Each structure stands twice: as structure tokens, then as C-alpha cells.
């Protein structure tokens, strides 16, 4: 990585942490580089996002990153921190030893600095039909579901589509154009096992090709990195089992 600019240390600060952050923009014609910032932790919140906002406010307003809810529910601030993909707003700086290295989500086109182009990622999610498909006539009120059936959605519906898992998957790095990736597949499973959905057969048909589902080789980086504690690998394994049972 090309060494970029080292920004000035804050004056009179005693508790200073070093940050090494990936920078790139389309205007200056330069290659990507890593800039060094120093943040006074005594006047900063505990999370990595707090530090990023402090850098943007006090040191370098040109640093670009996505953020919104600051509580781990919107998925905007997903990035590679200290080598793993996670949400900057809920990742404490105390969890990191030494300098804080921040990179954009891996193997994605970079729009600017820490902002990846997630168009394809979103399109893959849309392609798995993330809505209720029914054939029966609409009920008078709601589509009913038992408590046991609703429980099956736990660990699936909480996904915030932050892209941490898919961009942590080496298989998605190499085949992301055709392999759907853990996030889209987790959602595919969420709709497959939703008892109210009546298009299960079609959903499973859609996944039955060499690339969409089967590029998953159970590497497990996805489950390890999910900032919400979800397990896409398990969901993918369940889909594979359903396809096997169907063929039997």
C-alpha cells in the first residue's frame, strides 16, 4: 500500500491513538494510499465511528465514509477494521491492539475512500425475491403464523444487509459476479422457511445452478465476521440440505 499523508497530531494530547486509513478519490489521479491520523482518545467516543467522525470534523473533512444510525442497525458503516469486516459504530477501539487500520470492504470497487459500490450486492438481494409470494386468496386480516414458525425466522430477519459477510468471503471475491454471497443467501433462506410464503419450490429452483449457491465451500469467514452475530453459513447449509431432500 502506498504511504500517503501523515496528518498533524492534536496539540497537548496525552492519550493519542494512531489510525491508518485507506484513501482514494477519482479527482487527483493518484493511486490509492494510506493516510495516518492521530486522535486524542480523551475527547473521543469509544467506537471506531466516533474516531472517524472526529477525524472528519477536526482534522480532515475530505475523509469519506458512510454512516447513519450509529447503533448497529442500519448497516451503513460496514468497513474492514483491524483486518476484519464489521460495523464501525459498534466496534470499540479497545478491541484493537496497536494502530487502528481501516480499509473499505474487500474486493469491491471503491467510490471514494471507505465507500464501496454496493449496487451489485443490492441487486443480488433483490434477485432472491425478498418479499412474500402467495397463491392463496388474501385473508381478511393478516397471514397467520404460529409462534414456532415465527421462531424459525430468528437469526435471519435481523440481517441489516451491511455486506460485511459477503465481502469477507474469498469465494465471493473470486466469483462475486455469479455467486450470490452469504447475505443474499441468508435472505433467500429467510423467505424459503417463512411458513406464510408459498413460492418455496420456485425459490429453491432459482438457486439450483453451479454458481448462485454452490460456490459456498463452507469457508466460514461470514459467520466469524457478522457484526450482528448471525450465521449465514448455517443458513446456506440448510438450503443445501433442502435441495438434497427435494432431489431425493
Amino acid at each position: 500500500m502506498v504511504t500517503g499523508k501523515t496528518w498533524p497530531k492534536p496539540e497537548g494530547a496525552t492519550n493519542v491513538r494512531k489510525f491508518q486509513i485507506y484513501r482514494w478519490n477519482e479527482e487527483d489521479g493518484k493511486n490509492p494510499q494510506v493516510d495516518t491520523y492521530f486522535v486524542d482518545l480523551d475527547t473521543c467516543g469509544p467506537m471506531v465511528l466516533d474516531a472517524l467522525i472526529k477525524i472528519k470534523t477536526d482534522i480532515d473533512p475530505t475523509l469519506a465514509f458512510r454512516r447513519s444510525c450509529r447503533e448497529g442497525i442500519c448497516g451503513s458503516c460496514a468497513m474492514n477494521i483491524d483486518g476484519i469486516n464489521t460495523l464501525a459504530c459498534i466496534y470499540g477501539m479497545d478491541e484493537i491492539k496497536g494502530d487502528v487500520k481501516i480499509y473499505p470492504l474487500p474486493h469491491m470497487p471503491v467510490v471514494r475512500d471507505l465507500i464501496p459500490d454496493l449496487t451489485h450486492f443490492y441487486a443480488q438481494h433483490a434477485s432472491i425475491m425478498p418479499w412474500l409470494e402467495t397463491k392463496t386468496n388474501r385473508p381478511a386480516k393478516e397471514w397467520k403464523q404460529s409462534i414456532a414458525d415465527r421462531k424459525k425466522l430468528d437469526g435471519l430477519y435481523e440481517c441489516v444487509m451491511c455486506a460485511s459477510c459477503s465481502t469477507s468471503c474469498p469465494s465471493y471475491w473470486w466469483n462475486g459476479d455469479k455467486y450470490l454471497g452469504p447475505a443474499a443467501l441468508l435472505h433467500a433462506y429467510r423467505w424459503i422457511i417463512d411458513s406464510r410464503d408459498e413460492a418455496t419450490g420456485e425459490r429453491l429452483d432459482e438457486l439450483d445452478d453451479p454458481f448462485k449457491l454452490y460456490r459456498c465451500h463452507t469457508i466460514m469467514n461470514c459467520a466469524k465476521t457478522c457484526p450482528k452475530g448471525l450465521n449465514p453459513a448455517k443458513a446456506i447449509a440448510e438450503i443445501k440440505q433442502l435441495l438434497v431432500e427435494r432431489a431425493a
Partner: protein
Amino acid sequence: MALCLRLASRSVAANCSSRILQKSLLTTSSRSWAIQQYSAEEWERKNEKMGRPLSPHLTIYKFQLTSMLSITHRATGMGLHFGLLGFAGAMVLLPNSYPYYLTLLAGSGGGKALLVASKFIISWPFFFHTFNGIRHLVWDMGKGFSIKTLYKSGYAVVGLSILAALVAAVV
């Protein structure tokens, strides 16, 4: 807004030619919404044309048990495959027999240490690939996916394969 998104999703999903989607497309006048048809190739080309770099991956991602054991499984698999092919090829092509070459190795000056080391180097990939293979089969049955369990099973595979290779090397 929700309808817009639903139609956008439908035109995206049109690339997957599913019966339900084709039925949905017919019932709504998606053309009048001027939604762009999406393709992965166009997306890749667009980003390339704009000169956007690809964010670093192998050079920055943390080495974890998950990915390291997975790539080792692939590497040992390749090693065993070509190793076996190589051994079979050597059996066919080389002039002398296996005991001859073994005696050659034994008398080469490396002594017992060389033989033990060679046996370890040859047998470890076999044991690792076998034990990790069983771990994979357990996953295929749907079991052992929690982070705690897969880390435990991962360490067990590494430990047992080293142990087994050591036994094979000294026996």
C-alpha cells in the same frame, strides 16, 4: 416508493427467468417506470471505465482459523492429488524400484532425522485432509456451525493431524 422498489426488484430478477417473476412483469407496466435493466457485466465494466480501484483483500484481511483451515484443506487436497499422480508416474517411468530409492534416501547422510521428517511431511497432509474432510461432512449434515464449535473442531483437526503424523513418522 415501495411499489417502485418492488418493480425495480422485478426487473432485476428478470435476469433469472423464473415463472413467478415473468407473471409479475406482465401484470405491471414496468416499462413506463423507466427502470434500468441490470447486469453484473455492465456493472463491472462501468466501474472499470470510471477507473475505480478494487479495494484490497488478501493483502489486508486478517488470517483466521476459518479461512486458513479452508485453504489448507484445498492445498493438501491438491498436494495429495498431484503427489499420488507423481508417485504413480514415477513408478511407471523411473528405472529402479521403490526399495532402491528408499535405500538411496536412507544412505544419503541425513540419517534417521531425514527419514522421520520425510514421513511426517508426507503423512501430515493426508491426516489433515482426512480429519478436516470429516469436519466438512459434519457441516454438510447441518451440524457444528456455531463459532465456538467450529473453532473447537478446527483446533482438534490441527492437533490430531499433527499427532497422527508424528506417530506415523516415528513408528
